[in-house]
């Protein structure tokens, strides 16, 4: 019995660790939350295994509570992600690294692809007209006015 239990515990620990890897390495907000959900899977598997090891229903009851908390967490986190996306028009977590204290070092190397929050395209999301004719130069525009 005990040897069988340990294998399930290893699989649960593996799922948790994969979630940790995903949470730390991915830069997409949605992938980070999905990784957190995978950590919860690992914890659930461990709880069920412990319940079977002790022969009580407590492990499965705890797992149902874990499921409840995971559902709440997913809903709240997605609402927060939508809010962040509305502000920055990107799911990149790197854009929010400016939230740190001003005298602290950057947690990761900035400028590795992600455009900073202040320099985003101001015309993004506005309707575009089909370009027609040739683009007037600045001097021409000044002369005509």
């Amino acid at each position, binding site marked *: 019995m005990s040897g069988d239990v340990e294998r*399930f515990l290893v699989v649960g620990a593996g799922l948790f660790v994969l979630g940790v890897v995903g949470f730390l390495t991915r830069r997409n907000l949605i992938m980070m939350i999905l990784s957190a959900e995978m950590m919860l899977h690992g914890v659930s598997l461990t709880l069920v295994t412990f319940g079977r090891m002790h*022969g009580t229903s407590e492990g499965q009851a705890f797992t149902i509570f874990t499921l409840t908390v995971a559902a709440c967490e997913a809903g709240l986190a997605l609402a927060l992600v939508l809010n962040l*996306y509305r502000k920055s028009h990107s799911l990149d977590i790197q854009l929010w690294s400016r939230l740190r204290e001003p005298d602290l070092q950057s947690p990761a190397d900035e400028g590795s692809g992600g455009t900073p929050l202040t320099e985003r395209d101001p015309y993004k999301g506005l309707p575009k007209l089909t370009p027609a004719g040739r683009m007037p130069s600045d001097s021409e525009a000044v002369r005509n006015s």
Partner: protein
Amino acid sequence: MTAWIQTHPVTFAGLIIWVLGILWLLPARQVAQPRPKIPGLLLTAVGIILLCSSVGKAQSELASEVLFWLFSVSALLCGVLMVTSRNPVYGALWFALVTLSTCGLFLLQSAPFLAASTIIVYAGAVIVTFLFVIMLAQQGGALGYDQQSRQGIPATVAAFVLLGAIVMTLQMKPAADNAAAAAGVVAAATPATVGNPLSATDAEHPLGSMKGLGRSLFGDYLFAVELAGTLLLIASIGAIAIAPRREQGAI
């Protein structure tokens, strides 16, 4: 530590090979072309199989052994693919496969109700919500920030040091138990039933049965069930309050 490596070389080799597979599969910054996935996948699968086969003993029944290998390898492999996928839509779909495999492992451990409810909640609700958010927010498919991993090598190594510590503890515990038994120290029968008598399993309420689980939930943990319901209510109110409204502009 070194003694553990010497006595369990297969486990250590499995961990190392698994780390190498993940590092191969992680989106890299300098590489213009994505690396081919096949070597990384093979390394990962070999690492997982070495690690799982070196811990614990095999079961006597062939069917449960085959099912355990099927579900555990698919859970961990799909987890690796989810963590390293460049497109978040594929990541969500791999996560659905991880959920299904975990539910298979639940079934193997005689938790059928839990498997069913996990499939309903995760595959039915959570993944669909994630896909909706991806559709709302990221219509362009894979973008630049999905092609790069952030601090890939330190994060992976740190996480696998954690896994190595857990596995080492699991492998050292039976030895400690045997030593205690040899010294005449007999562990007391697990007194888990003392505090929560309704969670105990017997012939009438076997492990994993709806009757036993319901008795545990609504007997021993009735107050916690009420709290969990309140938490769900508050979380749904909070999600509605936080989510951006239409008058604040389109998403």
